[in-house]
């Protein structure tokens, strides 16, 4: 259950990039999460909502893009998406592969509601 501390880190990042007086304008926070990243997205969304409720960020929500696990083979050079739990190249069966995606845990951007910009 480290989703709570991940959610707290996301809030910290938002606070770092958005001035305090604009926090109530934050709507959609886009994230990239790799399927290999060990984060349960439902749980992350739940934690994020729980810690932002009744704060200036209460209208903010997470939009999560799932990034599939993928490797590049060091033998045949091709990319593949092996079965979860292995890194075996689907083309030649080699074990020597490099993970090229699936470990992401990233905040991509933050969308602000402009209609509130003048009011504050």
């Amino acid at each position, binding site marked *: 259950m480290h989703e709570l501390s991940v959610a707290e880190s996301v809030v910290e990042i938002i606070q770092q990039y958005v001035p305090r007086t604009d926090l109530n304008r934050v709507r959609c926070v886009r*994230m990239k999460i790799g399927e290999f990243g060990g984060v349960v997205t439902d749980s992350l969304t739940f934690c994020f909502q729980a810690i932002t409720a009744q704060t200036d960020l209460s209208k903010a929500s997470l939009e999560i893009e799932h990034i599939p696990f993928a490797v590049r083979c060091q033998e045949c050079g091709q990319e593949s998406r092996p079965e979860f739990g292995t*890194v075996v190249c689907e083309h030649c069966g080699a074990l*020597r592969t490099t993970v090229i995606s699936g470990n992401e845990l990233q905040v991509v951007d933050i969308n602000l509601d402009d209609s509130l910009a003048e009011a504050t």
Partner: protein
Amino acid sequence: MSVVTIQRKVLEKNDEVASVNRRYFAERKMFVINMVSSPGSGKTSILECTLEHLKSGLNIAVIEGDVQTDLDAQRVAKFGVPVAQIVTNGGCHLEAKLVNDALSSLQLSGTQLLVIENVGNLVCPANYDLGEAMKVVVASTTEGDDKPLKYPGMFHKASVLLVNKIDLVPYVNCSPDRLKKNALQINPTLKIFETSCTTKQGIPEWCDWLKSEVVKQLRA
């Protein structure tokens, strides 16, 4: 809508503190391992065997991470080595900052090997770099041989796998060979030892290897 572009790793702050820790360890030529496993796989037991085996030849210190209690730290303290206990109060993993705080409370002059025992959990600790040289994952035969398939993240990030409770193989439905094969599918470079804390099988091999890694670090 206006957009603030960020493109930042969520755990960047932890990674930064981990780099600070790593520099601290490097300056002191200290070899640091981060022991991870499910609850009860035998991290503390292996640590006890390791201390018994290596204590006279190496200067060792320990950081214990637990959700509650300092029971593991008490077990380790019996060996007369410096030990710090981190209680996470519900937190399911250690973070670099917690380790950094613990460093100041430890007597580390001359320490050559620092062992960090993480909170028993096969998922969350995988995401948090502590600044260690390597992660050592313990999987015991009583958990079954499918653990690497179910928790690939941890096995992928580890450098060493200790297949523990090997003495119990006759009583459990677990094939150590299948366990090792599953682990190698997710991480072909894993260094593997089969261990038992009751019969001490594999403990000398593991300790000799660990000692050689510590010596490598000292010479680096």
